[in-house]
C-alpha cells in the first residue's frame, strides 16, 4: 500500500492498468504452453504413483471408499515403470557419481603440473602442455573415449607385456581415464587463467617477505587463484556430469546406460523422461549449492 501524502492526506491515484502489449501477450502464451506441458508431463508420469497415493490416502478415506481402495490394492495389477526400474536408476546414479567424482579428482591432480608447464617460460614445458590442452579441448569427448577404449586395443600385446591390459580392458577404468585426461585439460586452463589474474605485486610482496617460490605459490597465490576459479570450476563440474552420459555408449550402466537398457526392454518413453528429470535435478541442485558456496567463500570481497 502506498501511504497517503502527510500534508494533504490525499492518496495518490492508483497505477494505471498494465496494457496488453505484444510482449505481455507472448509471455502469457508461452507460459501457458509451459504450464500445459508441465501438467501433461505430471499426468503422464502419475500412473507410477497410483499405488503409493492410494496407500497414503487409505487411512483418511470414508468407509465405503476405503473398501474400494482395499479391493483395488489387492486385485489391481500395478505395473509401474518406477517400481520395476527405480532401483536401477539409483544404481545408475551411483555409477555416474563415481565416474564424475573420480574423473574430477584425478583431473584436478593432473591439471596442476599441466597449468604450471603451460605458463612456464621454457618452450620445452609450455609447448607440450599447450598441445595437450589444445588436443583435449579441440576434439569431442566421445572420440577421445573411443580412442582410449577401442584404440588402445590395438596395442594389446604391448599392454599385456607391461601388465596394463587389465586397465584398458575394463570400460569403467577407460571412461574414468578418458574423462580425467579431458577434464585435466579444461581445469588446467581454468587454473592458469586464475593464476595469471593474480596481480604481480602478490608475488613481489611474498618475495619481499622472504618466502621462497613454492611456498609463495601454495600459500599466497593458489588460495587467491582458486577464489577466482570457483565459478568456472562449478561450470566444469556441471559439464562433466553432462558429459558423463557418454559413458553409456561404451556399455557403462550409469544413469544414461540404465535408461537405454530400460527403454530397449520396454519401449516406454518414460525411461528418457525420468532420466531428464534426474539430470535436471542434479544439475540444478549443484548449481544452487555452488552459488551458495561461492557467496560464502567470497563474503569478504562483498562491498
Amino acid at each position, binding site marked *: 500500500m502506498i501511504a497517503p501524502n502527510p500534508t494533504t492526506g490525499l492518496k495518490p491515484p492508483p497505477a494505471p492498468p498494465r496494457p496488453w502489449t505484444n*510482449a505481455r501477450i507472448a*509471455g502469457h502464451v508461452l507460459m501457458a504452453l509451459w504450464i500445459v506441458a508441465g501438467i501433461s508431463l505430471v499426468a503422464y508420469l502419475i500412473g507410477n504413483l497410483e499405488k503409493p497415493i492410494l496407500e497414503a490416502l487409505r487411512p483418511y478415506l470414508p468407509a465405503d471408499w476405503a473398501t474400494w481402495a482395499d479391493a483395488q490394492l489387492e486385485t489391481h495389477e500395478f505395473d509401474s515403470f518406477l517400481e520395476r526400474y527405480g532401483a536401477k536408476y539409483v544404481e545408475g546414479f551411483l555409477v555416474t557419481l563415481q565416474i564424475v567424482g573420480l574423473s574430477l579428482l584425478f583431473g584436478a591432480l593432473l591439471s596442476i603440473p599441466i597449468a604450471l608447464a603451460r605458463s612456464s617460460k621454457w618452450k620445452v614445458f609450455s609447448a607440450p602442455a599447450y598441445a595437450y590442452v589444445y588436443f583435449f579441448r579441440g576434439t569431442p569427448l566421445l572420440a577421445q573415449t573411443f580412442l582410449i577404449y577401442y584404440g588402445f586395443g590395438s596395442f594389446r600385446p604391448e599392454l599385456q607385456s607391461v601388465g596394463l591390459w587389465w586397465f584398458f580392458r575394463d570400460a569403467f577404468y577407460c571412461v574414468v581415464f578418458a574423462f580425467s585426461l579431458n577434464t585435466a585439460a579444461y581445469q588446467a586452463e581454468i587454473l592458469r587463467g586464475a593464476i595469471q589474474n593474480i596481480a604481480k605485486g602478490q608475488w613481489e610482496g611474498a618475495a619481499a617477505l622472504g618466502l621462497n617460490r613454492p611456498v609463495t605459490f601454495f600459500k599466497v597465490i593458489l588460495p587467491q587463484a582458486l577464489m577466482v576459479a570457483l565459478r568456472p570450476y562449478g561450470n566444469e563440474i556441471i559439464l562433466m556430469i553432462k558429459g558423463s552420459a*557418454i559413458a553409456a555408449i561404451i556399455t557403462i550402466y550409469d544413469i544414461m546406460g540404465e535408461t537405454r537398457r530400460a527403454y530397449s526392454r520396454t519401449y516406454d518413453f518414460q525411461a528418457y523422461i525420468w532420466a531428464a528429470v534426474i539430470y535436471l535435478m542434479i544439475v540444478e541442485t549443484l548449481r544452487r549449492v555452488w552459488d551458495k558456496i561461492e557467496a560464502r567463500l567470497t563474503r569478504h570481497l562483498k562491498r
Partner: protein
Amino acid sequence: MEEALTLLSFGENGWGDTIAKGVLITISLSLATLPFGLIIGFLIALAKNSSEPSLKLAANIYTTIFRGLPELLTLFLVFFGVQIGLQQLLKLMGFDIYIEVNSFVAGMIALSLVFSSFASEAFLSAFRGIPQGQYEGGYALGLSRFKTMTLIILPQLIRLALPALGNLWLILLKDTALVSTIGLSDLLRETSIAARVTKEPFLFFGLACLIYLALAMISSAAFTRIERWSKRGEVQR
C-alpha cells in the same frame, strides 16, 4: 606404415572417400544447425531482456532445461520423442504406420535447442554491454523500435557476442559427434565402421580426433578474421 597409408587412401582399398563423406556430413550438420540456433538464441535473449516478467520466466525455463540436460539425452529425447509423438498423432488420425525420424533432422533439432540456450546467454551479456543511450538515440532520430534494433543495436550486439559465439561454434562442432549414436553417418561413425572392419581402431579413431582438431583450427582462424572484420570500425590502437 605403408599399410596404414593404403587404408587411409582414396579409392578401392582405402577408407579415404568414406571418411571424407563423413567429414562433409559433420560440417553440413553443424552449418545447418547454426542459423536456427542463432535465431532462436537471439529471440530467447530478447525475451530475457524484456521488462515483461512472464516472458522472462518462460525464456528462463527454456534455458534451464536445455542447459541442464546432457546433450546426448536431449538428442535421444528428440529422436525417440518426435518418433513416438508423430506415431501417436497419426494413430489418432487413423493411420497405423511405423515412422523413423531422419537422424540428421533429429540431430539438427536437438543441437539447435542446446546451441540456442547457450547462445541466448552470450547475446544477453552482449545486450548488457550496450548502453541505454543507443536505444534512446535511435528513438530520438525517429527510428521505429524494429529499425533501432536492426540498424543500431544488432550490429553492436554481434560484435560484442562474437567471441562467445565462436566458442559455442566449436562446442557445436564437437557435439555433432554425438549424432553418430543415433545412426547418422558422420565422421565419427564412418571411422568407427572403418576401425571395426580393418581392426585398426587406434589409427582410425586417432585420425578422427585429428580431423576434428583440424576443423577446430580452421574455425578458430576463420573466427579471428571475422572478429577483425567486425571491429574494422573501431579506432586502431
